[in-house]
């Protein structure tokens, strides 16, 4: 199994508080992704990174920011959490070369986030 660790695995917090989720990999893969998964919506991309300090927005990036200061860590921050951000968050990594996704994405175990 690909070495991906998400932390925390579960979190309950209140509306308006900041939240940071961490994704740590030991595979030295170039690409890292953050998705959220909600019933009826499948997996939706929030942000992704194609290298250290190189990030781009996905389809549901509003209200989220990311940072990647090291190859192995990709942080997702909710600056001021809202109830609509209650979801399961998955990190994924990929060893794709070049510009396209020609290698599998391997997913972490997910973080279940509840915002009350």
């Amino acid at each position: 199994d690909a070495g991906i660790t998400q932390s925390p695995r579960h979190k309950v917090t209140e509306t308006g508080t900041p939240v940071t989720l961490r994704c740590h990999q030991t595979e030295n893969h170039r690409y890292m992704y953050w998705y959220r998964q909600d019933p009826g919506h499948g997996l939706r991309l929030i942000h992704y990174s194609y290298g250290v300090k190189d990030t781009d927005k996905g389809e549901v990036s509003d209200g989220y920011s990311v940072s990647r200061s090291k190859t192995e860590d990709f942080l997702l921050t909710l600056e001021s959490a809202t109830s609509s951000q209650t979801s399961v968050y998955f990190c994924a990594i990929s060893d794709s070369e070049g510009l396209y996704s020609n290698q599998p994405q391997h997913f972490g175990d997910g973080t279940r986030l509840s915002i009350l």
Partner: protein
Amino acid sequence: QQPVQSPQAVILREGEDAVINCSSSKALYSVHWYRQKHGEAPVFLMILLKGGEQKGHDKISASFNEKKQQSSLYLTASQLSYSGTYFCGTEESTSYGKLTFGQGTILTVHP
């Protein structure tokens, strides 16, 4: 733009075959297929690349019609372990590494 998967759900008995379809309105570079069991992370099954290259499991087959922007996943002689939700992820020719996932197809295999 989110690809459309069909059917939304399918129920099989062990040994039966199934086909899951994925259709996009955009020109595609690649199609990925993943399976997710309840409460677990998605697991990679297969990649189909523009030009015909495939990467994935030997026991699962798939096709990719580049002109129609469609892909199909073929599950033959289904086993109980095939149960789960199947997602296709499409990479548009201008997406550069980003996948857009379909809404999923729930596959249930009964003894």
